[in-house]
């Protein structure tokens, strides 16, 4: 079969393309078509792009690796130093009482606080916030302080990197409204009785 490979040129009847002689596998034939031009160009473009990419990132290092990208991103966001706890004078703060603030506080509560203190503030991992006891002080300012700075060794994290001062005040104000409510399955009192 292969011997007369070059003698006769067979053509595919439907397309008129040249068939390769000797290329027959379980009746599958192969055409002698060239690579599609657009395909060749696509391949070349991706290769050129890749060479440029490697030169930019890894040879001349004019494009940033991820560590530098991160520095740039943080600089652009104006982030520079570890946040400092805002000093709060517990005695001077007054809880918010307007409904809008309390509603906003409740929304934060349901997103962030209830995973430890449960929905109604009855406590589970964190202490019960409905009773008349407290580990870190009973005044509104104490609540703001503990939310802001946390007590990580006891399991309460600092929220100052996740909530604004304004949000902390709102959620602390909401916490103040929990006191005296009677949700189901309250946790036993912890800390000191409030005066």
């Amino acid at each position, binding site marked *: 079969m292969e011997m007369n490979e070059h003698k006769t040129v067979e053509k595919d009847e439907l397309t008129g393309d040249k068939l390769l002689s*000797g290329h027959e596998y379980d009746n*599958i034939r192969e055409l*002698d078509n060239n690579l599609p031009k657009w395909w060749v160009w*696509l391949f070349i473009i991706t290769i050129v792009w890749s060479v440029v990419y490697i030169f930019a990132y*890894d040879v001349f290092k004019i494009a940033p690796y*991820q560590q530098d990208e991160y520095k740039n991103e943080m600089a652009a*966001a104006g982030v520079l130093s570890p946040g400092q706890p805002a000093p709060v004078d517990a005695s001077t703060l007054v809880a918010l009482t307007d409904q809008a603030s309390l509603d906003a506080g409740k929304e934060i509560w349901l997103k962030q606080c209830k995973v430890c203190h449960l929905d109604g503030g009855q406590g589970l991992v964190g202490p019960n916030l409905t009773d008349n006891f407290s580990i870190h002080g009973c005044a509104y300012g104490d609540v703001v302080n503990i939310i802001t700075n946390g007590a990580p*060794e006891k399991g309460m*994290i600092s929220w100052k990197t996740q909530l604004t001062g304004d949000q902390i005040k709102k959620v602390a104000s909401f916490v103040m409204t929990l006191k005296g409510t009677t949700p189901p399955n309250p946790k036993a009192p912890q800390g000191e009785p409030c005066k």
Partner: protein
Amino acid sequence: MENQTFYYDNKIVKNFAYATLFWGVVGMVVGLLLALQFIWPALTFGIPYTTFGRIRPIHTNAVIFAFVGNGMFTGIYYSLQRLCKARMFNDLLSKINFWGWQLIIVLAAVTFACGMTTGKEYAELEWPIDILVAVIWLVFGANMIGTILKRRTQHIYVAIWFYLATFVTITVLHVTNSLAIPVNLFKSYPIYAGVQDALVQWWYGHNAVAFFLTTPFLGLMYYFLPKAANRPIYSYRLSIVHFWALIFLYIWAGPHHLLYSALPGWAQSLGVVFSVMLIAPSWGGMVNGLLTLRGAWDRVREDPVLKFMVVAVTAYGMSTFEGPMMSTKTVNAISHFTDWTVGHAHIGALGWNGFLTFAVLYYLIPRMFQTQLYSRKIANLHFWIGTLGIIFYAVPLYWGAITQASMWKEFTADGFLKYPNFLETVTQLKPMYATRAIGGGLYIVGIVLGIYNLILTVRAGKFLPEEAASAPALAKTQGKRGSGEGIHRWLERRPVQFILVALVAILIGGLIEIVPLYLVKTNIPTIASVKPYTPLELQGRDIYVREGCYTCHSQQVRPFRSETERYGEYAKAGEYVYDHPFQWGSKRNGPDLSREGVVNGRQYKPNSWHYNHMLNPQRLNEQSIMPVYKWLITDDLDLSTTAKKIRVMQFLGVPYPAGYDKIANDDLMIQAKGIADDLKSQGIQVEPTKEIIAMIAYLQRLGKDVHAAGMPTATITGK
């Protein structure tokens, strides 16, 4: 030359075909259960064997190795005999291949359900089964190569090139990635750790996609598409160029799974560029397939086999364009860890592999049963339901991925994360998850219709186990190239040389990327404060691996403001040096856990929280989709393994003091009592010997060492 008569073995093809259908249904039904667990986490049933982390590997392995694997064997055993004009080399090897493979699948399902896993995606099988896989795979290879060597055709056709590349590369990948030191029959530690383990694993993982899901199926396309369309292959030259380009380039692209990780920048760059260079070689297969149909498009409308093929090849073209796009850093920053990857994988699995498998089955079953397909109408219905299923599956996931990635990255004007609670970003996706489940369900309905159609076809026909064929014996030819014989044409009649060239082509990329990570120290800068896990933490880590926590939780914080704000310091190569295996994960259905133990961090939770969360996650937040892990609280930790585990770790280079294995359990108990006492102070009574204690110890260790190094933790100062 005189004609010889011989018989094609159709029985082995039939066996593989039936196994394909059976495992296809099993694998996809498990997939549907997983999809439903996103909506109703109670569907994990509160028992270990049906929990997400354990059955997710059953789903992926069943679909890849059982459904697609058997489909691949079906198509290869059918086409190879015909392309070689020879019966399979050895009937016994065929049988061993078939029954051995089914045995592996059953063992895989059982061991995964029991929590025996290496914790490496798509390579979860423990070492005894890994050895079995290697043996059976070599049996397949011997049988295939034997058949090729006794062929009655001069040249090997392009389909066989792809089959050979598949065999050679999967052998190399499977063996290299599975190297591990056993602790006992059911547990081993990989010889690689951390970044090295990650690179080897994703070199494997990516190329399992390439050489298990792609090259064998391209081979099948090259046989079944021209046969079904009765058309010649569009371009022999394109076959050559795209074949070699594909296998050479593919092997380099693994690091694209590790962009923005702790992998060194140069390796990430290689992953990016080799992925982009893969577009044309991948499309070469699609183009050669679709252009082969020139002049036969009217038949595509009529013939379900061609219809399935056209959608399969188109899906292949789509995912092989999408893949390189996802490999660019810009897109990857959004697509990685989200459902985008899952959508992408399913366009490939359901569209390319699933549809091509059914095209092959619809082609060869009627022929082997000497009849026509029972119903074209049902096949068409299967086609449309399946196509609709794929769309309903993938589109919501793309939508969900972009939604979730945007939520992760969104900051308020005050410079705080808008959605600091990870769960919010999951709850948002529930409608998408529901739609995805419907899509998957539709696809399964299509498969059931297909099986029904094939059963009726089988019933109507008469099986021809031994199909007679005849061809002249292969004339002896000279080894050297003849005059005017192209070098490739020569290679096509020298299969052994062909295999060797292919082996060299696939080894280059892997060697260049993996070896420097071992030889060049600067690639993984050490961190002095990173110390080996305590015995209790090590045991806890093994429980973490056993439960498949990595299927939903990453341990890899990317260097983005949105991630360091949410989790803490971004990942460093040096912090993972004792992680056998690495547990970076690839998808976040829950938050990253690699900073979980940093007491001053944003993710920190006290011991009692972890206890309550494992016992009943929905009590802490009813929206949570975390499964219940209450058996951790009742089951005793197996202390008998501690000493051996320490010794294996020492053997792998983890610097425990000499003789530490003998006193490890003493240290373990001291630490366990400490945690139990702390829980007690919170009103929780639990013995220190329970598994939950080890799990908590491990979680509380995560991130501690790297933060102890005094890494600058940049923070936004709120206004």
